[in-house]
């Protein structure tokens, strides 16, 4: 029910091209607290590609995720519904980085655990991604899922995406590395990444 006092949120505007000196700090693409975070260390890397097929530099990527036990470091993930999931004081779950001149990005993080969904559902392990760039009037939102997870089949967010698009939300195992997940983000056109409503 809407109340009379409701005000719509302020409008978003593009991040523009010149923001790195304000928004990025060294080490923010490493979520592991110098290796102290509990769980399996993984590399998440990929390339951001625009509708002309070219790599896009200076894209701000932010990730948000649960820890290895599937617990978010936030009071909304409160003990009452946490089950056995424990907080990890060395894992905050937030990372930021910028694509380089080849449109490439890289995060070092922990493989998240499964987290509760709506009702009695569980969500497959995943990482939420925010994308900001010049030429994006506001944020784009997507999710990265992990290859070979049985839980992907029952994941409520993945289930809402048509079969042919679903696989584009699942990262690829990188050749020659057993802990690197590759996830390219295609903003437009062939192979376009599925984006979610913000």
């Amino acid at each position, binding site marked *: 029910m809407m109340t009379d006092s409701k005000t719509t*949120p302020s409008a978003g*505007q593009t991040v523009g091209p010149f923001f790195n000196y304000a928004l990025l700090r060294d080490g923010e693409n490493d979520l592991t607290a110098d290796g102290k975070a509990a769980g399996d260390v993984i590399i998440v890397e990929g390339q951001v590609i625009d*509708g002309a097929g070219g790599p*896009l530099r200076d894209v701000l990527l932010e990730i948000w995720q649960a820890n290895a036990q599937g617990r978010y470091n936030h009071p909304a993930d409160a003990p009452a519904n946490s089950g056995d999931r424990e907080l990890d004081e060395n894992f905050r779950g937030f990372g930021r980085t910028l694509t380089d001149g080849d449109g490439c990005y890289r995060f070092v993080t922990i493989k998240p655990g499964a987290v509760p969904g709506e009702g009695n559902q569980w969500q497959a392990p995943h990482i939420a991604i925010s994308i*900001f760039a010049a030429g994006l009037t*506001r944020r784009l939102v997507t999710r990265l899922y992990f290859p070979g997870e049985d839980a992907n089949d029952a994941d409520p967010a993945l289930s809402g995406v048509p079969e042919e698009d679903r696989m584009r939300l699942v990262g690829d195992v990188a050749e020659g590395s057993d802990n690197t997940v590759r996830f390219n983000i295609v903003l437009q056109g062939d192979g376009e990444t*599925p*984006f979610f409503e913000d």
Partner: protein
Amino acid sequence: MTDDTEAQENREYWEYEPSSQPPYLTPNYKSTVIRSPNKPQYKLPRTLTETTGPLFTQDDLVADEYDLSVNAKGDAAIGSLMVMDGFVTDEDGRPAANTLIELWQANSAGKYHHLMDTRDAPGDPNFIGAGRAVTDSEGHYRFMTIKPGAYPVPNSGNYWRPPHLHLSLFGRSFMSRMITQCYFPGDPLNELDHILHGVPDADAKERLIMTFDPVVGVHEHALGYRFDIVLRGRHATPMVG
């Protein structure tokens, strides 16, 4: 803090009113043409992933990060001193406390502290143009800075961006995360700006323009501008059924 109770945090969020946000494809803003997705976006169930997010406090700040008008050594930037002051609330008007705000902007000549800004305009060694603040318990924030200059967009037929400040806000969850820009009242370039006018709703557009407010300025020292920000928030009363 009662706002941290599970019941508060897990209330449902409002969805964005589409006309209050700029569409991804805004043809007058040229680079959107090859960067805006073609396909419609999928619905995302609002889960813990979306209702949680990184939190910040005043302790995350270094002293004086709110003041962009002097460099680390205390040397003054060139330009018209101004205070930007305002409140961050959610959609029901509740204060958004402990919200990190990151501010960045061009210098008074309209040039950014960025290697790729190769425009023929002077840099200012005393001005980086980046600051941070965290809102207090009333949702209040304040920056001291200098008024940025307008600048021409290359290869755009002499289109100049109006003076503006960039703002990044987190709120309390992944859903409240947003980045925006705010503008100066009465500037003739506002009417011509493709980015500001990408917002369809007239009221939403107007709300990106600051209000001149001498009260928040500093007497005989700095002009005052008021800018209030509304973040996406939860319903005032829990949704039933």
